[in-house]
């Protein structure tokens, strides 16, 4: 790197606005306000409340169809709404675009803060816990018709009682999860 360039980045690194907007994490209140704002935008634009994990079920279905499978007879995709979504395809699915946006946005944020790092897998225990935990969360979210975004966050912000039921269950699950974590990961 030439000296000029190096000096430029040294200046950016200590710049007050870069520190505030790019480097340091936003305060919780700022993040909460932004989340509230964007979930209103989401509801207004797409007509559906914010959800994340339901999209992964569709991604799975499209993938399965791409290799020649069919989910027409599956109970989960049996409704006309679900069939219409599958018919329209991934490019016409707002939730898919939003999920891609979340992933690329998170990547951009960590790159701007120069905090990107590929983390080492420390033990086999982490792999086992991630696989089992991921499967249980994914399956549970489909049974509950939503994850902590679709069923909890969007449920409560739509003034639905189901959101609060989900919150209580989430809390119980978190307590059990913490106990398991301390038992097996400490």
């Amino acid at each position, binding site marked *: 790197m030439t000296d000029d360039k190096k000096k430029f980045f040294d200046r950016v690194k200590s710049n007050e606005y870069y520190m505030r907007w790019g480097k340091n994490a936003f305060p919780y209140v700022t993040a909460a306000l932004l989340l509230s704002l964007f979930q209103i935008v989401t509801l207004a634009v797409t007509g559906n409340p914010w959800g994340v994990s339901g999209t992964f079920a569709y991604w799975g279905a499209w993938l399965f169809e791409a290799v020649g499978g069919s989910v027409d007879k599956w109970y989960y995709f049996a409704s006309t709404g679900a069939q219409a979504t599958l018919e329209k395809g991934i490019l016409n699915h707002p939730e898919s675009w939003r999920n891609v946006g979340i992933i690329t946005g998170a990547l951009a944020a960590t790159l701007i803060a120069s905090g990107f790092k590929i983390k080492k897998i420390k033990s086999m225990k*982490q792999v086992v816990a991630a696989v089992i935990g991921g499967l249980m969360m994914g399956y549970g979210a489909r049974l509950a018709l939503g994850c902590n975004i679709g069923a909890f966050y969007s449920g409560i912000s739509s003034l639905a009682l189901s959101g609060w039921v989900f919150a209580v269950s989430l809390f119980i699950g978190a307590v059990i999860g913490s106990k398991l974590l301390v038992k097996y990961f400490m």
Partner: protein
Amino acid sequence: MKEVMLDCFGEACPVPLVKAQNKIKELEIGDVLIVQIDHSCAMKNVPEWARKDGYNVEVEEVDDGEWEVIIEKTK
């Protein structure tokens, strides 16, 4: 006065926090605990806990996405 390194690289929240809380109990007053982390949310909750408990805390960015939280057990 001694310095103790706690390697929490590759550990997700809240493991670094609980490990740091357990480790500091074993230390004497005046000792320094250095928690090595690469999970950005630990950069928030580890210093928050340590400051609330009244210890001296400093966070140092050692590399891209790697930090050391330096905690002095003051009491």
